[in-house]
């Protein structure tokens, strides 16, 4: 008898037409930065294959999609670094083949074995990272104010702030402004963090996703994006160099994305080759400067491929300081995650 979940699967497959299963094709569930042809085409040409990409937003959405797919539909998954364990728990990631992604040349702080390894087995590798911090228009605000989180969301900038619409990094920043480490956030800290969020919210003109935040900053609707960073302003840098970012004295939240092979992949060898390419210097440089959003490559050797101008925009030389100042995304367990999301939604509805 067909269960409810089977029925959903049939409906999803019918709607999507099913993912391609051809031998010379690789199916990857990715973030938008992987859809840049400048990143994918060299791999396709080198291996004479077609890479089919499907973008998603939110780990929950990706896991639901994978759960409803047939084994073999997907070969590669790009996932939020803090959610690798969720993907492993859900059984959608296969152990990473040995040698698929040597991390010897990586920035040591972003290897993050504790995120990518579960019970001693490595399931994914960090491919890109960056910061959720403060983006701003240097012509409109006092850059000195941007060096202190509490002055960023002070009344002085009321109505000129946009908050990035993702609760984990923004609550991480709020915690750091109160001297709470992101890794140590517990239920008992939520009231204090909620107070900061309320102040932030009261002075914000909007709470915006990536495109809306970029548009707001670029059009002068707001002058500051809390939770922004190089990923928000780097693609605008050539046309509007006044749009920049900084890491305040309290620090910033560090995001990282990982890549792995999907359990039951139809083309595991090709998937491993793809991961090798993405984490190699050439792929890393292209991924770092993707037309969707920029970010730091995990592999430091990408610095040999990136131009000086690109490295300037990424603040390549300041990375040792930035890495030291930043803390990882909060990684709450399921119960705390619900509490944090509820607090976030309560704040938005105030």
């Amino acid at each position, binding site marked *: 008898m067909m269960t*409810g979940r089977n*029925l*959903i699967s049939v*409906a999803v497959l019918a709607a999507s037409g099913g993912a391609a299963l051809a031998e010379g094709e690789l199916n990857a569930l990715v973030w938008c930065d992987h859809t840049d042809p400048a990143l994918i085409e060299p791999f396709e040409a080198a291996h004479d294959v077609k890479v089919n990409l499907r973008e998603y*937003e*939110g*780990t*929950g*959405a990706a*896991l*639901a999609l994978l759960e409803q797919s047939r084994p073999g539909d997907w070969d590669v998954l790009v996932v939020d670094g803090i959610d690798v364990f*969720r993907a492993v*728990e*859900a059984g959608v990631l296969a152990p990473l083949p040995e040698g698929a992604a040597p991390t010897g040349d990586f920035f040591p702080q972003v290897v993050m074995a504790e995120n990518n390894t579960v019970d001693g087995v490595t399931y994914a590798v960090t491919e890109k990272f960056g910061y959720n911090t403060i983006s701003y228009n240097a012509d409109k605000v006092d850059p000195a104010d941007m060096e202190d989180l509490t002055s960023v969301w002070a009344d002085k900038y009321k*109505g000129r702030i*946009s908050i990035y*619409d993702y609760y*984990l990094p923004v609550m991480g920043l709020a915690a750091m402004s109160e001297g709470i480490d992101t890794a140590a956030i517990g239920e008992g800290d939520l009231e204090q963090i909620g107070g900061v969020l309320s102040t932030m919210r009261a002075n914000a*003109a*909007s*709470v*915006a*996703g990536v*495109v*809306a935040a970029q*548009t*707001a900053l670029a*059009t*002068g*609707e707001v002058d500051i994006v809390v939770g922004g960073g190089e990923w928000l302003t780097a693609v605008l840098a050539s046309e509007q160099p006044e749009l920049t970012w900084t890491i305040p004295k309290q620090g910033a939240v560090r995001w990282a994305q990982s890549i792995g092979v999907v359990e039951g992949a139809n083309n595991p060898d090709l998937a491993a080759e793809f991961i090798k390419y993405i984490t190699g210097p050439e792929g890393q440089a292209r991924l770092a400067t993707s037309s969707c959003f920029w970010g730091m490559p995990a592999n430091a050797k990408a610095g040999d491929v990136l131009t000086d101008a690109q490295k300037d925009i990424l603040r390549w030389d300041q990375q040792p300081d930035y890495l030291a100042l930043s803390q990882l995304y909060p990684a709450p*367990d*399921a*119960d705390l*995650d*619900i509490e944090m*999301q*509820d607090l976030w*939604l*309560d704040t*938005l*509805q105030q």
Partner: protein
Amino acid sequence: MSRIQSRFQGWGLVAPALLWTTAFFVVPFVVMAAMSFASLEGRTLVWGFSFENYARLLEKAYLWRAIIVSLEITLTVTAVSVLLAYPLAWIIAFRVPQRWQRLALLLAILPFWTSYVVRSYAWLLVLAREGVVNQTMLALGLISDPITLANTRFATITGFVHFFVMLLTLTIYANLIQLPPNYRRAAMDLGANAFQTFRHVILPLTLPGIVTGAFLTFVLCIGDYVTPQILGGNTELTVPQVIMVQLGRRADFPLASALAIVLMGIVALAYLTSSRWLRLDRI
């Protein structure tokens, strides 16, 4: 042809539509309804029969607030759209020469030709602090500093009204042109002035068109995610936005399903309230 043959032929003709509706409405609805009684234990979906998700709707202020926000926006959009669309449809039906009416209708629905998302972002730019509206008001000396229009409920309603006035204009126009001109002449002959003719003859006869358009506006508006997300700036959340948040990271399908069922309940209530005047054949 025997009665049995005729019955089989009848089912044969109905079968494609029946199968389509069963596969793409009835089954998904049943799955969604069942899901709304399931729960998440940690991050694991547990099927069962629990009212936990519906209880959360009452417990969590942001959830019932989302329902109120959705209703407030939807009712405002519906009322404003009707008030704007009726005169427009009237002018096209009775003031524009018949040979130009097709062109007038075409112009009225022209914005339908652009992408919904693009149109929403265009409104964001128009309403921005540096946008056309603020710049015009500044140039005319109506304001001394730009005012906040984008990322507000006003922006959401503006985006919606722009879209739904077109839809309502079509449904009301379709209703107006079906009115025999003799009715108006007869009312005038009996001594009614223009307002009385409108109030006692035209308006009651065009009510089905208005209610049909208003109902469609209500249904489409209350379930829309794109416009409030782009134009509202998340300064307040509607039900579809809260549903998306539940799905995005935590994959809380049970709560999202409960919210969707509540939305369907509201739409059903709107249907029952307006069913007396609903005439879908007038569209």
